[in-house]
């Protein structure tokens, strides 16, 4: 036999270390597969806590906002009056908002009713229907603009009312 072959056999057929899996199979080594899930579970638990904490915080904020809105609505006295009779609507608004609201048949608007919104300061909204729904905002009843600051905007909100 050549020295080369002797070296190859001696070098390539050396003893190797048994894998840990053998010890696991025979019950002499802890199964690593239980360590990874534990670590993963810890990480997952931390993630869940973080997410839940964030959710709870946002939920708390949302509840705060909701509660604030509810409080605001409870303090808001809203009244509505539905009628296609322009005179009746104007009469109702006059009584509620304290100002004259002239009907505007020249603009092709038909009265649908009136809405009284009391926010921080009094304001009235006159609803009319034509080809589309429109909202006519009155200036705050207590302001100097009352009675002449009529504005027609599609579905304008209370913010616009306040921005007048």
């Amino acid at each position, binding site marked *: 036999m050549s020295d080369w072959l002797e070296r190859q*056999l001696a070098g390539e057929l050396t003893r190797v270390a048994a894998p840990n899996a053998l010890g696991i199979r*025979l019950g002499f080594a802890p199964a690593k597969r239980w360590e990874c899930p534990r670590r993963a579970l810890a990480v997952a638990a931390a993630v869940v806590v973080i997410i839940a904490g964030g959710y709870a915080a946002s939920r708390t904020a949302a509840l705060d906002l909701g509660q604030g809105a509810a409080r605001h609505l409870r303090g808001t006295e809203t009244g509505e009056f539905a009628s296609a009779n322009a005179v009746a609507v104007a009469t109702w608004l006059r009584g509620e908002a304290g100002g004259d609201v002239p009907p505007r048949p020249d603009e092709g608007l038909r009265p649908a009713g009136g809405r009284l919104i009391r926010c921080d300061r009094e304001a009235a909204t006159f609803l009319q229907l034509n080809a589309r729904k429109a909202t006519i905002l009155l200036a705050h009843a207590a302001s100097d603009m009352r009675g002449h600051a009529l504005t027609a905007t599609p579905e304008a909100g209370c913010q616009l009312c306040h921005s007048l």
Partner: protein
Amino acid sequence: MEGSDRELIEGCRRGERDAFRALFETYQDQIYSIALRFSGNEALAMDIAQDTFLKLFSSMAEFRGDSSFSTWVYRLVVNRCLDHKRRSWRLIPMADKVMAVLRAPGDALHGLLHSEMRGRVQGAVEKLPADQRIVVVLRYTEGLTYEEIAEVLGCSMGTVASRLNRAHKALGRRLSHWKGSSHV
């Protein structure tokens, strides 16, 4: 028999788990290596090693000290190797090699060449008849003398020498054309 082996054997006979563990830790590399070099397949080597240990633990009472304990262990693993049925494991080494390449680091040219040669040698050994293969493994993996191999296999030294000689010739034929590429 060495004192440490005797203590381990006595501990195992008393059913002491620590003794089994110590025995396992002492012989795991030896048993697994023989199984791996004989079978050429890690999964099969695991099965053989596991079977060997189970046999070792269950038949501890049968060891009477007629030979050394390590010789007795060698006999157990050799018998497990020879008894183990050849399954469809010839396909598995290819997967092992693929995984080895995938796991290889970027500077692995040297390692791949070395692995290639190791694969050639291992493949050539696998093609040997089982009686020659086990002699080669005991000789080169465990470094046993002809006399020790003869004791493990229960044959004469002449038989060992004859098997080893035939194995060398066969291996020389199969590996000679790789001689020039074995600079790693």
